[in-house]
């Protein structure tokens, strides 16, 4: 979109916001924080599971901070938005929010006092949640330990710092609609659809967004960008060399690693960490629905996938003779092969994915592969997960470009990516501070 069209779009939003000034929302009267005993223990437990499926703690917990106490910076194309404090502290959290205020925030993106909330909070998905699930989530959050900590002010560029404009955004993009089940499909599929499209808000990362930050309706699950990562497509254009199945998706979501696809990393790692503690039936439902988004792979693709898995299990090294003189092949042999060429079970130490199976190498964007090479895979402190050393210090930009191009050609057999050097520079600039120092 050109700058002029973007400006025109902003003007449209401004006008719509003016028109919709009648869409003013009243403040809802505060309450005394409800006593823990006022909530049923079963309801709280159900809410805990829902909060895990919703990955609430990812955005509402600062690095090293108290859970749900907010303060995590979410980098968006419009500036930095901080996850808010959703503990029941009455001064800095949601302790004085009655249920109606909570439901309004989740479904309409309006806080208790009537301010519009930025759609970084994915109420465009939560709007589909049932009354019962919202009541359970409320019960869970209102029985957490209250933490008194102010959320830092957002740092957004003009005009996005004007909250009233969100009213116009909502007119354009927020569809307030309850989930409608599909009677042609199984109960499990419908449960998965309800979770994926609603609470789990998978599309928030896996669907590309338009210039105004709304998910593109005609490109559902076609792959998006989030915080310096490429969120792979979940629809028919999913990049995985071995077609996903419901069973493989279940294993991936449940354990963070799947033998024909590799390990979770980046913003997906906490999602999987949360799902590892959720009921099996819920994760299976999510997997069933996600699998249905990918059209049934052709017989040819399935056969190719089986061949790739068989070859990876037999453990032949990736470096093939024709590529021996490729400068990237030399780096691969010296730096990567010791783990990635091993036929051992991936769950053992030092055994890593055969990169012919890697979605990162087959994806339309090199960003994830570059992230892996630079930073490795580092689980958050105190969480289990696959680990890979980073090579930010060992390899120069030029060497990383050579390695990436080699893998793209020989592991994925795909057309070279453009501007890999620029992506490496961007990734180095965008590194978390703790990694950049290594």
């Amino acid at each position: 979109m050109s700058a002029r069209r973007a400006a025109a779009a902003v003007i449209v939003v401004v006008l719509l916001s003016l028109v919709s000034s009648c869409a003013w929302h009243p403040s809802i009267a505060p309450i005394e924080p409800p006593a823990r005993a006022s909530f049923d223990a079963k309801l709280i437990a159900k809410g805990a599971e829902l909060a895990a499926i919703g990955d609430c703690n990812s955005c509402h917990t600062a690095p090293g901070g108290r859970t749900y106490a907010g303060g995590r910076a979410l980098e968006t194309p419009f500036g930095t938005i901080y996850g808010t404090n959703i503990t029941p502290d009455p001064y800095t959290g949601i302790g004085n929010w009655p249920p109606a205020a909570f439901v309004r925030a989740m479904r309409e993106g309006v806080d208790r006092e009537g301010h519009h909330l930025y759609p970084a909070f994915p109420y465009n998905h939560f709007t589909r949640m049932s009354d019962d699930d919202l009541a359970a989530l409320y019960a869970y959050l209102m029985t957490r330990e209250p933490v008194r900590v102010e959320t830092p002010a957002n740092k957004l560029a003009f005009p996005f710092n004007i909250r009233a404009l969100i009213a116009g955004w909502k007119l354009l993009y927020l569809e307030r609609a309850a989930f409608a089940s599909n009677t042609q499909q199984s109960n499990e599929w419908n449960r998965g659809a309800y979770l994926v499209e609603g609470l789990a808000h998978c599309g928030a990362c896996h669907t590309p967004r338009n210039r105004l930050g709304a998910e593109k309706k005609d490109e559902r699950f076609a792959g998006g960008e989030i915080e310096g990562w490429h969120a792979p497509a979940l629809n028919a254009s999913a990049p995985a060399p071995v077609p996903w199945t419901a069973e493989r998706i279940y294993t991936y979501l449940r354990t963070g690693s799947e033998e024909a696809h590799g390990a979770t990393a980046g913003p997906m790692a906490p999602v999987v960490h949360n799902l590892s503690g959720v009921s099996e039936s819920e994760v299976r439902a999510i997997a069933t629905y996600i699998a249905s988004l990918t059209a049934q792979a052709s017989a040819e693709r399935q056969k190719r996938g089986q061949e790739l898995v068989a070859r990876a299990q037999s453990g032949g090294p990736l470096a093939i003779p024709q590529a021996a003189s490729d400068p990237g092949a030399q780096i691969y042999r010296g730096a990567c092969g010791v783990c990635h060429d091993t036929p051992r079970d991936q769950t053992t130490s030092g055994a890593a994915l055969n990169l012919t199976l890697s979605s990162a190498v087959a994806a339309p964007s090199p960003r994830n592969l570059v992230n892996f090479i630079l930073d490795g895979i580092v689980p958050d402190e105190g969480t289990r997960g696959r680990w890979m050393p980073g090579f930010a210090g060992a390899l120069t930009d030029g060497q990383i470009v050579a390695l990436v191009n080699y893998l793209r050609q020989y592991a994925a057999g795909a057309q070279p990516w453009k501007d890999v050097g620029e992506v490496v520079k961007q990734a180095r600039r965008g590194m978390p501070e703790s990694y950049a120092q290594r």
Partner: protein
Amino acid sequence: MINLNVNGRAYPVDADPDTPLLYVLRDHLQLNAAKFGCGLGQCGACTVMVDGQAVFSCITPISVLANRQVKTVEALGTAESPGPVQRAFIEEQAAQCGYCIPGMMMRAQALLEKNALPTAAQIRAHMSTNLCRCGTHMRILRAVARAAGYMKTGSGGNGR
């Protein structure tokens, strides 16, 4: 033949380009500070510095090191005149068996050359890739903080 620059000295090395830097340091150059631990970049015993950054020498082939500066513990000081990081590690008695300590010191050195006043959280995050089987991590963290003080004041040995 590959030319390596280690601790400010040029070394012509006759080895396969795929050879890990660690093997060349120990077997060709007799620089034995860096240790072999896992050989997979998972433990950090082999950590040295390349162009100012801490790297795992066991998974860094010498083919990527042309025109780059390698630094090992041998450059930090001597037994008679230990550098700030070495002195801090001695004073905190950070070593038990000592096998991980050269890697720990090089990772600490890389941090302190970039950030002379790291916070406790920054030290923890930075050192997290290096493991100590004896469990002296708390002393190691204290030693890094102490070394930061020495580097700031310029005390604590020659600190080459």
